[in-house]
Structure formats: C-alpha cells, structure tokens
C-alpha cells in the first residue's frame, strides 16, 4: 500500500496539559508569571539579544547536556518577548518536540505566529498562552473585567502579555458574544470568536477578505491614523461574518497596533438576542409598525 503523506496534526490538549503540569510543579503561582524563575528552575539559560545580533524572534538551543533560550529584546512590546520565551519553553516541555529539534540538520529553521500551520509551532503557541494566561486565573480575571477592548487592556496588564495574544485568549475563553479580528492594509488576517459566537456561525472570515467599509475599522483604514489610535462605534455582524446565522448590531472597538500597519478589532455584545427579542426591537424602532396578537387581531404600539 502506498504511504500517505499526511502532516501531523497539532495536539493542543497535549500542549495545554504540559503547561498546566509545569504550573502545578511551581511552589506558588503569582501574576504575571515569572518566566525567568521557571527557566532557572528547569536549568535553562535565558539570554536577550539585540536586533543587530539576531534576525529571528527567539530560539531554543540544546548543546551537550545544556539548554538555552535566546530571544530578541528590541521588540517594543514586552508581552511579545515574553510570549516568545514561553513558546520556546513549550518546545522544551513537550517531549514530542524533541523529535523535531533533534531531527535532520543541526539547525531547524521554522516560522511561527498565531496562525502557523506547523503542528509543533501551534502547540508551542498554545503552550505559551496557557503558561502565561492560565485558564482558570484568566476566566476569573474576565469575570472581574469590563467588556471589549478595555477588558483586553486590563487583562494584558494583569498577565503582562501582548494585546494580540491577550485578545485571542479573551475571545477563546469569554462567556460573552465576542470576536476579535486582526487586519492589515484593509485586509483581514485572522479572527477568533467566543463559543457563543460559534453557535451562530459568526466565527470565521476568509483570510484577505476586505475589512467592511461600514465599520470603524474600515473607516480607520480609509482615513488613516497614527499608531495607537483607537476608535469606538457599532457595526453589524453580517458586515463581518458572511455565514452568520443571525444578524445583530455589535459594539466595535478598534486599536491600531502600530506594528506592520496592523489593527485589532473587538466586536462584542452583552448578549445575542433571540429572534423574538429582535422582532420586538424592530417593531419598537419602527413607529409605523404593528403587532398581531394570538387571535390575529392587530395591536398598535
């Protein structure tokens, strides 16, 4: 039988378990998570390097019996640097990654990012998110936060993580209807949505789709603004999610991330109204509208 060449699939549960196991082995957990202390406990040397010294975000090195992590420290977002170190700790802690590290060439070059397709990079990213933003502590913090971009900013400060990685974690764990969208140059790069958004199929946007013109993010790309600029407004789910089973006006918060012209958009609502509530709202909004009772008799508002 011919061998099939199916690429391995990321085992995100394994990655999360490895991060939880590492956290459980610590004498105590304090926020933000102290990565340097964790690395020291594992006998891993962690060093920073300047931009002119390395042209990659970070690496995990094994030589002789020693392990080390090298990361670039010129990136102005501390959360990004911390995510890189946590990502490399993931390669160390997930035993299955050693097969990649030790395979073939002595130097294994790979690329990563929040949407990498490589199974071990996805797992290391998942590990990093779980290590820096432990699920239970993050859920507790969400409960004590506002909603939308202010919540993400507060969480990023608490966990000392980047706005982007915090926003992704927030979208995955929030009990509210929330979606986050990262765009660049008026095109959508990726999005993540909370479980209740998935329930109405408002959770997927094809990569490189144009940012909706009828949105604050669309207006931002049209008019331009300095890095760090923020906008607040409202936009309809249908403008963003072509497959959404329901349409509803959501609050839209947007911030220019200042790196590579990227923006972070947070779409949120206190709840997704059911169809009956939406009909009632439509009728209330329309002074000419009428409603019928069970006997078919027309009732005026």
């Amino acid at each position, binding site marked *: 039988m011919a061998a099939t060449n199916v690429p391995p699939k990321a085992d995100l549960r394994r990655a999360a378990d490895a991060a939880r196991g590492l956290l459980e082995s610590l004498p105590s957990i304090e926020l933000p998570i102290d990565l340097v202390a964790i690395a020291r406990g594992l006998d891993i040397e962690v060093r920073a390097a300047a931009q002119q010294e*390395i*042209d990659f975000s970070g690496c995990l090195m094994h030589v002789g*019996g020693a392990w080390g992590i090298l990361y670039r420290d010129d990136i102005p977002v501390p959360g990004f640097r911390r995510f890189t170190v946590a990502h490399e700790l993931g390669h*160390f802690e997930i*035993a299955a990654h050693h097969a990649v590290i*030790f395979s073939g060439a002595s130097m294994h070059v790979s690329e990563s990012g929040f949407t990498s397709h490589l199974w071990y990079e996805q797992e290391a990213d998942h590990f990093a998110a779980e290590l820096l933003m432990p699920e239970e502590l993050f859920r507790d913090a969400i409960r004590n936060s506002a909603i939308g971009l202010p919540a993400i900013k507060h969480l990023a400060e608490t966990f000392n993580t980047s706005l982007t990685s915090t926003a992704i974690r927030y979208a995955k764990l929030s009990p509210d209807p929330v979606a986050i969208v990262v765009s660049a140059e008026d095109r959508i790069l990726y999005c993540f949505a909370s479980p209740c958004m998935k329930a109405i199929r408002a959770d997927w946007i094809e990569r490189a789709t144009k940012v909706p013109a009828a949105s604050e993010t669309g207006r931002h790309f049209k008019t331009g603004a300095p890095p760090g600029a923020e906008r607040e407004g409202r936009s309809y789910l249908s403008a963003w999610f072509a497959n959404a089973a329901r349409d509803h006006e959501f609050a839209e918060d947007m911030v220019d991330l200042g790196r590579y012209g990227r923006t972070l958009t947070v779409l949120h609502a206190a709840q997704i109204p059911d169809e009956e509530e939406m009909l009632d709202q439509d009728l209330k909004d329309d002074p000419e509208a009428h409603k019928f009772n069970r006997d078919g008799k027309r009732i005026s508002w």
Partner: protein
Amino acid sequence: MSKQEVGGRIKQIIETRGLTQAQLSAKSGLPPATISHFITGFRTPGTSSLRKLSRALGVSVEYLLGISEEPKIAGDEAKVIFRNAQQLSEESLKTLATFSQMLIDQDAKKKKDGGD
C-alpha cells in the same frame, strides 16, 4: 515513540545494568512511584524527568525517546529550533555560536563544581 516504548527503553537499560527501580529513583531524584509509572507506560516522562533520567543513566534524552539509537550524550553540536526565522544572517550565526559556547562552558563548570 509511545509511552510504553519509552518505559520499555528505561526498563531495558536498568535490567542490562542490573539496577533496581529504587536505585534509579535514588540516582535520578525521581520518586519510586514515578519511575514505576514511566516503566509500566502509565505516564509519559516530561522533559524535566527525561533530563534527570538521562543524567542518572548516562544516556541521551534522544535515546530514551527512541529518536536516536545512539545512547551516548551528543557532543558539542548545537541543535536549535527557531521562532520567526526565514534565513539566518552571518551576524545571527555568530551570535548563535557565542551562545552555544557559553552554554557548553557553563555546563562544564556546573559539572566541575558538582552542581550537575
């Protein structure tokens, strides 16, 4: 390699050397129950445990994992996995070589000081 295979390899090494699980526990600093769980395949050793077993048994982590058939701990050839790298510049290679040497020196010092 599966949990059972990693455990099988540990079992094979200690049997060949006439070691008991209790002796391996004492040498590695891992609890006897943990050693037993690894050998029976009930649990998979994490990286920290693999390092302890590697040092206690004097074999490489790669060998324990079944990635390599060579039990000896690798020499000074660095193995690296990168994040967000496309092509490495001359400067990067120099920095990596310096970092690699620093790790080797520190490791040698630890062994000499008896810290390992």
